[in-house]
C-alpha cells in the first residue's frame, strides 16, 4: 500500500504543478494560481505523510503548511498595495 500511496502523491504533485502553470497562463493572476498549486501540493504532502512519516517528510509537510498559510495571508495584501494607474484628467 505504501508504494501505491507514494506513487499517487507524486502524481498529485505533478498535477499541482501543471494546474498552477496552466491556471497562471490562462488568468495571469498569481494569487489564485499559487493558492491552487499549494492546495494540490498539500494534498500530495498529506498522502505522502500517511505513507512515510520520517522526520524529513514531517519537516517538508510542516514547511508546506507554513508557506501555504503565509502566501494566502500576505499575497492579496501585496497585490492590493500595488499602486494602480494614474487617473487621467
Amino acid at each position, binding site marked *: 500500500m505504501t508504494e501505491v500511496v507514494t506513487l499517487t502523491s507524486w502524481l*498529485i504533485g505533478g498535477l499541482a504543478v501543471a494546474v498552477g502553470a496552466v491556471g497562471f497562463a490562462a488568468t495571469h493572476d498569481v494569487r489564485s494560481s499559487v493558492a491552487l498549486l499549494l492546495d494540490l501540493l*498539500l494534498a500530495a504532502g*498529506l498522502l505522502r505523510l500517511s505513507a512515510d512519516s520520517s522526520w524529513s517528510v514531517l519537516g517538508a509537510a510542516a514547511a508546506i503548511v507554513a508557506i501555504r498559510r503565509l502566501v494566502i495571508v500576505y499575497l492579496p495584501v501585496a497585490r492590493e498595495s500595488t499602486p494602480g494607474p494614474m487617473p487621467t484628467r
Partner: protein
Amino acid sequence: MTHLQVGWSEEWLRVGVDALVILVEAAGAVVIFIGAVLAAFQFLRVLPRRDPEQFVPVRLTLGRFLALGLEFQLASDILRTAIAPSYEELGKLAVVATIRTALNYFLAREIREEQNQLQGGSPSGRSPSEKDPPR
C-alpha cells in the same frame, strides 16, 4: 488470568489496532485522492472562462475533501497511540497530529471565509444577510 493469556490478548489487540489503522488511513488517502481528481476536473471546466474568481469553488471543493481526509488521518493517529512502542514513535505521532490539527483548523477557517466571499459577504465572516441595525 495467566501470563500467557495476557500475552495473547495484547498480541490480538496489537493486530486488531494495526488492521484498523491501515483501514482508516486508507480511507483518508482515498478521500484526499478523490478530492484532488474532482478538483482537477472542476478546474478544467472553469478554465475556459479565464476568471481567477472561478478558482475559488475549485479550492473549496478540494478544501472540503482535504478536511475530511485529515479527520480520517487524525483518527488513525489516535488509534496508533494505543500501540506506539517507543518514545520516538510517540514524538512523531505528536508532531503529525499537531500538523494535521493545525491544518484542519486553518482549512475550516478558509472554507468559511471563502464561502462568505462567494456569497458576496465580507471576508471577516459576516454574511450578506447580516445588515446593520436601523438607527
